[in-house]
């Protein structure tokens, strides 16, 4: 009896303990899933296979050249092993089938609440002639038959048409909602050939999304009705993709060691910190699927990090007869050698403003390394070096921003070396002079303290960036209505270039009843002069207008202050007022373009914006059309090849100004009491 009572007492412990355990440890059950959800690169799951999903797009129902923007909001891509080959039911499995495996939007692009993913805005227009990676995530090794793209039914997407030639019934250069024709937010198919995933193997899943415009809006506020379908990308998207693989010798992957990054190879667009794809190194091997331009090729930087090893980097594929470029449908080999079993340390500190001593938030620090076999001095020629890891400062100016146990910050995982390894680090922040310093890692592999920098404050890796200031005033032709305000942003670019270097941290707000506001703009002190321009963010139909109705005002050749921390107050800055001329668009064609062709819009010699030359023909051909949404004004257009001017600047033909109309006024942009711009019109430009 005593035993029984004890047993009952013991048994009475079980339910609450079980429930508590499930409460406390339940979340750990989702750990792998969460890890992958938080990673845009292959995660180190013990049993996972990795799938890389990407899209190409097609549009039917309306000529693509009639659109300025088209975004489709994607929540996730799901895979299901059903239907099994030979099964009686060869249809798609149900939406609630437990076997669906989800590949969510990558971290930082659309992380959501309670584990629900957010949206990735897929640029449908750009996707017509380039492959857009969605995410790489782990799934259970299996053979998958069904593929489903989950769309956001609440906010499926948006469309911005250009203005109609000769006038139309709806306004152009304004945002229109997208509505899905079919109920539900999923589009799916059963693959003719099963998608086979294997442990520690990266599987490519290229998909083609087709958007068919069923109905266009016939009046303000009406949506575009769109039918979306998905299918395997033709030819496995080989006309867009290349394969780079190889070996990494000298170190091992170590997926299970906390606070040490997994040994991996990362590809980023050459000369940038923009990571395109990462592959874990398994058994000293890696493999990457990368988008590539068919005509000109694409240049990537590659770097090896993690695994308690030294870093390695390469610019392009070497040796190569193509300048390191990669082309679609080709396979390339790039091998690396590193030194493993390193003691890891940190380079950390604080970045401040040299003039105010205040912390600089969001400064970017890039670790630079000469490409393999190069003797380039990264301190003097940083553009010839590969960024082999980057971090940013937090709200108090401290770096590195913390990573996770499994994926620590690059700057917390640096080999100390014996003798100590010297790293070259570049710090950049908008509005400040960039700075390059040399540092050695020290301390532990966590936190924001560590590193030895001879040029830093007291030998620590704390640095102050210099800046100077330009002040001026922006004026409106007409005051905002008393209940409204105008939001104005001021930009600075290096004179004569499109090298934007600064913008106001806080947009100017001109409240109702006032017509002007003064600004002070941080600019790098080591640049002698700037081109400035100011643009408004108006409301249209109660929502933020993607393109302004106010004119863009410009000022070329604004002299900088003579020294750091000084202020330039140029006379005659922005004498032109911002007029409300309404929306406008410019469209044209380019003769024999290639994938490096762009078109630039300028006003008074100040370069304002660039447009890609988009596809009027189906992918993968490069099309020959371009378009801008810009308020009616006097502009020039310039053809660029790989960013360099090709030919003279052509004047844009006279742009029709929308006829002023009275109520109801859809915009916060107006120039006379009660009068607003009417429907806009397109301006056709001669071929470039």
């Amino acid at each position, binding site marked *: 009896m005593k035993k029984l009572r004890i047993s009952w007492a013991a048994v009475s412990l079980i339910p609450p303990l079980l429930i508590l355990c499930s409460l406390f440890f339940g979340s750990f059950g989702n750990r792998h899933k969460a890890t992958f959800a938080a990673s845009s690169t292959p995660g180190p799951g013990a049993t996972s296979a990795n799938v890389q999903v990407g899209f190409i797009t097609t549009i039917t129902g309306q000529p693509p050249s009639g659109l300025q923007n088209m975004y489709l909001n994607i929540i996730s891509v799901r895979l299901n092993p059903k239907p099994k080959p030979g099964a009686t039911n060869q249809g798609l499995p149900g939406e609630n089938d437990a076997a669906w495996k989800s590949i969510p939007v990558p971290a930082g692009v659309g992380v959501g609440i309670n584990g629900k993913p957010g*949206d990735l805005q897929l640029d449908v227009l750009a996707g017509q002639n380039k492959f857009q990676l969605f995410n790489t995530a782990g799934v259970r090794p299996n053979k998958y038959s069904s593929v489903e793209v989950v769309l956001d039914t609440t906010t499926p997407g948006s469309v911005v048409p250009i203005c109609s030639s000769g006038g139309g019934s709806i306004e152009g250069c304004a945002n229109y909602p997208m509505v899905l024709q079919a109920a539900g937010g999923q589009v799916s198919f059963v693959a003719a050939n099963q998608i086979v995933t294997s442990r520690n193997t990266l599987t490519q899943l290229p998909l083609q999304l087709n958007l068919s415009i069923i109905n266009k809006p016939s009046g303000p506020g009406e949506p575009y009705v769109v039918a979306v379908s998905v299918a395997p990308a033709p030819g496995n998207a080989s006309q867009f993709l290349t394969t780079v693989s190889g070996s990494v010798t000298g170190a091992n992957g170590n997926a299970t060691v906390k606070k040490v990054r997994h040994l991996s190879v990362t590809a980023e667009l050459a000369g940038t910190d923009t990571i395109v794809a990462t592959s874990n190194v398994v058994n000293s091997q890696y493999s990457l699927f990368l988008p590539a331009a068919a005509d000109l090729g694409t240049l990537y930087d590659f770097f090896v990090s993690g695994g308690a090893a030294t870093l390695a980097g390469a610019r392009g594929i070497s040796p190569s007869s193509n300048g390191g470029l990669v082309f679609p449908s080709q396979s390339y080999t790039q091998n690396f050698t590193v030194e493993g079993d390193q003691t890891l340390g940190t380079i950390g500190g604080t970045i401040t403003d040299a003039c105010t001593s205040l912390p600089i938030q*969001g400064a970017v620090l890039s670790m630079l390394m000469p490409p393999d076999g190069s003797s380039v001095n990264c301190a003097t020629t940083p553009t010839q070096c590969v960024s082999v890891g980057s971090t940013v400062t937090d709200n108090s100016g401290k770096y590195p921003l*913390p990573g996770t146990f499994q994926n620590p910050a690059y700057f917390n995982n640096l080999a100390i070396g014996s003798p100590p390894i010297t790293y070259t680090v570049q710090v950049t922040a908008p509005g400040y002079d960039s700075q390059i310093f040399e540092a050695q890692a020290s301390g532990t592999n966590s936190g924001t303290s560590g590193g030895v920098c001879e040029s830093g404050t007291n030998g620590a890796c704390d640095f102050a960036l210099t800046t100077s200031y330009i002040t001026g005033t922006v004026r409106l032709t007409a005051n905002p209505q008393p209940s409204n*305000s105008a939001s104005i942003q001021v*930009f600075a670019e290096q004179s004569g270039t499109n090298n934007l270097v600064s913008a106001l941290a806080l*947009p100017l707000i001109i409240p109702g009843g006032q017509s002007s506001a003064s600004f002070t703009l941080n600019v790098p002190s080591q640049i002698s002069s700037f081109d400035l321009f100011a643009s408004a963010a108006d409301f249209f139909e109660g929502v933020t207008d993607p393109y302004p109705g106010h004119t863009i005002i410009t000022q070329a050749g604004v002299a900088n202050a003579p020294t750091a921390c000084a202020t330039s107050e140029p006379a005659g800055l922005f004498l032109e007022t911002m007029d409300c001329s309404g929306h406008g668009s410019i469209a044209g064609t380019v003769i024999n373009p290639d994938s490096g062709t762009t078109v630039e819009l300028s006003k008074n010699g100040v370069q304002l914006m660039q447009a890609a030359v988009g596809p009027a023909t189906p992918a993968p051909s490069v099309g020959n059309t371009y378009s801008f949404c810009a308020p009616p004004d006097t502009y020039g257009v310039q053809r660029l090849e790989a960013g360099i001017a090709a030919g003279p600047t052509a004047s844009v033909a006279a742009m029709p100004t929308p006829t002023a109309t009275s109520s109801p006024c859809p915009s916060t942009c107006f120039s006379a009491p009660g009068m607003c711009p009417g429907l806009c019109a397109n301006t056709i430009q001669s071929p470039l």
Partner: protein
Amino acid sequence: MKMRITLRTLAVVAWAALLSAALGACNNSQGGFGGDVGNTPPVPPVTSFKVLGIVGTPFSLLISNANASWLVKGTIPLNVLIVNNQTPARMIATKLSNDNNLMSVEIVNGGIVLSLASTTAAFGVASVQTGGTLNTISPPAALDLRIYVTGPFGQRFQSLVEDATVGFITNTRAPAVFLFDQPSGKIDGQFTQDQNFGSFAINMTEGSDGSKVLTTASGGPFVIIRQP
């Protein structure tokens, strides 16, 4: 007999712990904290604002609701939560990099994206709003107190942030910033990691740009930070 009493006591303690956890989960009060932490009434789910896209892209953000406005600088990604938000609210984000990196701004409530805008332009601007049209930008928050949860990157966590009268339960991911306007008395926050990705890095700031740090907290999976 002694064993039985011990087991019964353990059972009672276990059930009490379960009840405490259940209450915390149900009424969002979390309970169990003396003094001025955790004893405020629960409120509806918080609307959050997200700046997303290519990780590490710097931006500046003007966010305004019906009562106040804030300037927030940072890098992608960042979750912004306004404590006791009064709609309508508007967010204008300016990308601060000269590249074609994607920057998306989202307004999310209960896991549903309410509004979304993107830009890939160099120094591009994207803006979203919720709860109607905010025609004017409100004045800067008076006594601009903030709590920054800077890491670990991607860490999902639950939080209770509160002043002397109102508490807010949220579930979001790091990096995140909680914005206060005219808080009643001192503020505090308690943060619990859903998964143990690493040590929390949390700081509380005062001032219009979030750079003046009042106090910091680290560790995990559970951390409390209080205004000094």
